[in-house]
């Protein structure tokens, strides 16, 4: 039994990863806080402790892929130092290219090899299979038993590679100084709250904090706790329950369900993905704040957006700003005329879609968002008076954007194009008014969940702030009591198996 307990604690298990929604994570956090409380005054030890804790966290989340994380860290640390150390443009370029090749190479191999091979096999006479040569070498040298026919996507690779690329490019552009100490840089890249699913933290936002002493006011602690509790609520109550009760089963076989049920699943997924991802981000920000580090907000009530452009300023802010700064603007942005600007938007959104997954569906998703943005820009050129913030029909645009975005989630969630077609067909044709009362009664719980989720989302910022303000003002013992009751209640509705955060797959 002792051996079993030790294995459970120290050895990675694919079916039991370390997630925010697991009790084990909070035990892990407490242990890390214990060590942090001892070393926090010494910057070197502080960063080293958190780096080691983050590597362990990554190992428990994704196994031996932490080696790839280390490769990325070493490459970009070296690149940053070398770029800053020389005045020769060719050397700077070389190191930028090395950083891009290593990071995008890793990302491309693990994420897009399957898709690339699939496309190649459509050509006549070609029939190749992707092989995981890393797994092959590991099996040969280390006697592991990895499946060489399956290239698994390392957890968080899309996030940390983008983070390290942004660091190297910022150093190259002179926007930030390189990090001199390896442990500091390693900690910046691997900091566990934001490691596996963002936000993508820019060097300029985080590196200065490495030289600051720990500070956490009581209000900030209350804010951190508030974020953690609301994040858990969004993920475990809203997102997981929606997935369990309606989304997964309807998306599994849309044709077996009526149009109304398909619509519930559709809108349910819109709420699920928001609650899941923003819930994760809230927890990440809250946990980081407990250590005195501030990471940026990643969501700002995206379904309140009054235009698609506004939506992309509110949804996954760190990714959209990354794409804007490192892709859209270098392509020319809107500085080279309207048509070129539209093309740049399409390229950015297509690649943004592909970032989410190696599948034609994500390309379509990104492409349709891009098309929507372009059409919006054309529309506002024709009717510029509607561009101002206080405009008539704001709620009309809000509803339009919300429905367009929700429609596009279909491509995101459906397992294949057949499911996309089946769902659209079901919504268009499977109306049966006779069954509506029965369906409404059967799905009363789902309707309640949708109502609660969307209601809180669309609640005015003032009301949300009032709720947060009330929590901050409560004494610490009441916060403790609320947290205990909350955790006990969360355990009651917790999913039986493990349900990873949606953005872990990216």
């Amino acid at each position: 039994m002792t051996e079993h307990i030790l294995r459970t604690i120290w050895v990675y298990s694919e079916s039991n990863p370390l997630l925010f929604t697991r009790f084990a994570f909070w035990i892990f956090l407490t242990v890390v806080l214990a060590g942090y409380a001892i070393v926090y005054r010494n910057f070197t030890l502080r960063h080293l402790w958190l780096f080691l804790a983050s590597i362990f966290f990554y190992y428990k989340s994704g196994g031996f892929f932490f080696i790839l994380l280390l490769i990325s860290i070493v490459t970009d640390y070296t690149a940053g130092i070398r770029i800053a150390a020389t005045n020769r443009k060719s050397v700077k370029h070389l190191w930028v290219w090395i950083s891009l090749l290593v990071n995008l190479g890793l990302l491309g191999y693990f994420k897009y090899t399957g898709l690339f091979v699939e496309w190649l096999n459509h050509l006549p006479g070609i029939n190749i299979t992707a092989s995981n040569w890393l797994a092959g070498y590991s099996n040969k040298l280390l006697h592991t038993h990895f499946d060489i026919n399956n290239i698994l996507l390392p957890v968080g690779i899309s996030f940390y590679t983008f983070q390290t690329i942004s660091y190297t490019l910022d150093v190259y552009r002179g926007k930030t100084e390189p990090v001199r100490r390896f442990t500091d840089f390693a900690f910046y890249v691997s900091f566990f709250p934001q490691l596996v699913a963002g936000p993508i933290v820019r060097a300029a936002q985080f590196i200065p904090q490495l030289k600051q002493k720990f500070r956490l006011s009581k209000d900030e602690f209350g804010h951190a706790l508030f974020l953690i509790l609301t994040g858990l609520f969004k993920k475990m109550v809203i997102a997981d329950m929606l997935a369990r009760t309606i989304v997964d089963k309807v998306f599994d076989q849309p044709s077996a369900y009526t149009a109304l049920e398909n619509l519930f699943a559709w809108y349910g997924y819109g709420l699920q993905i928001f609650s899941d991802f923003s819930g994760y981000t809230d927890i990440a920000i809250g946990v980081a704040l407990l250590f005195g580090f501030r990471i940026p907000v990643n969501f700002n009530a995206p379904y309140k957006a009054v235009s698609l452009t506004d939506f992309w300023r509110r949804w996954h802010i760190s990714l959209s700003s990354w794409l804007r700064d490192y892709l859209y603007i270098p392509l020319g942005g809107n500085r080279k005329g309207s048509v070129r600007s539209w093309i740049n938007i399409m390229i950015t959104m297509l690649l943004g879609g592909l970032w989410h997954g190696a599948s034609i569906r994500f390309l379509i998703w990104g492409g349709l968002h891009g098309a929507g943005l372009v059409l919006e820009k054309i529309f506002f050129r024709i009717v510029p008076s509607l561009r101002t913030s206080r405009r008539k029909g704001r709620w009309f645009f809000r509803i339009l954007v919300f429905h367009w975005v929700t429609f596009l989630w279909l491509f995101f969630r459906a397992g294949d194009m057949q499911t996309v077609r089946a769902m659209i067909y079901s919504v268009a044709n499977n109306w049966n008014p006779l069954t509506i009362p029965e369906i409404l009664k059967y799905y009363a719980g789902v309707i309640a969940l949708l109502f609660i989720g969307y209601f809180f989302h669309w609640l005015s910022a003032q009301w949300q702030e009032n709720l947060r303000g009330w929590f901050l003002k409560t004494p610490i013992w009441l916060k403790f009591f609320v947290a205990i009751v909350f955790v006990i209640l969360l355990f009651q509705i917790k999913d039986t198996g493990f349900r990873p955060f949606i953005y872990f797959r990216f």
Partner: protein
Amino acid sequence: MMKPFRVFLFFLLLILGVTGIFLLMPDDGVQLYSFRIRNPVRLWIQSNFSGHLHRLTPAKPLFRDTIPVIQADALRVTRKESFKDSLMKFVPSVEYPDHVAEQWRSLLHYYAGLKGMNKTSHILHYGDSQIEGDRITSVLRDSLQRWFGGGGPGLFLPVMTVPVTSTIRISADNTWRKEAVDLINAREHLLPPVGIFLEHCIFPGEEQGHAFFRVTVQHFALPLAGKINRFRIFYYGDPQECILTVESGKNRQSFPLSPNPSLKQITGNLRGFQGTVNFDMDAEERISIEGVSLEGGPGILLDNIPLRGRTMVAFSKADTAFMRCMIDSLNVRLVLFQFGLNSVAGGEQGITAFEKQFRYQLGKLREICPEVLTLVVGTTDMGREGIRTDTLSERLREIQRKVAFDEGCLFWDSYRAMGGRGSAKRWYTQDPQLIRPDYVHLSMAGSRFMASMLAKALYREIISAGVSEKRIPQ
């Protein structure tokens, strides 16, 4: 200021507090009005350390199995072959008491001779939401039709709770009304004439003179589902001047419905069927449609009759003679029962009530049609609280098997077919997933896999009954 030590202390006390509360809590939780606060700590310990802390989980004796479970045990499948291959290798056989063997073999021979006799025979597949959407029935139907002949999706109603299945798509206008046995009982205090669906669709001709419904075979349906050359409509009522118009492709036929106080059927051909058939009704009187069947040649038709939310078929609530009439018309010789989900959901009380109801309803079915055999498909493994099998589902399976044997029915153990205890979790981790995240409902892939295992078990029975393999293409 909050120093790191205070933050650490806060979380430490939080964890200790939560753990302490759960350790002090009774094992089966605390009842708070109608809500039970579960104790996840004990369950976590059980699911992670059950091999070591078996004292916490007293072993409940399973049925004495006639074949060893070990090779099929979900947790012990070897790496050398895939999980599904292992399950397929150890598909459990259909079980039955000795005195049923002769009747069962005769039935299989009868089915094998249907093509030669130019007859059709319907098999009724009753079940709960597990069989909804024709996910399981369609695969089984395809196998039976390949072996014994026949085609078409079988019986349905113009208005179904799930109008779109993996085989057909039904659309109907708003004129139709649906009545189920419970509703009729409450109103009329008489055992109502309802057909095998235990509900029917009413065309209120006296209010609206016209109604229609359309049936389309899905383009992704299994091939034999689209092999259709005739339709049958079972109706009841006293229609005066009712005309049924059936349109399929370029063919259009009209049939007058004749008044009759008992069940009546119309049969028409659908040669050149091209995927869709429209049924239009014009009448001035009320007509009840008890079932519509699309059929293709002599052989078998397996009718998917899902009763969502039900624990059992309520034969006792229907008029015996009427039901008998329809069963005879359909030439039903075998009925499949696949229930269990809702009984388990009802907890201990549900399980206890199930046994009583099951015996009672089987008795009622025997009253209606004594010669019909029943095959009980045992409940699947259901996961609760992680890897643990819901012990209620195990008990229900035991009850189903016992009652089936007592009442002279056949029994197929889908729990063992899945891999036994804890298999729901293993089915969930397959790619594609074979069971949905509720660990209760099979996914599309899982339904098909389950049906193919049952088909394999039936095939084995057919061969062991002495039907020549040459007559039964596998």
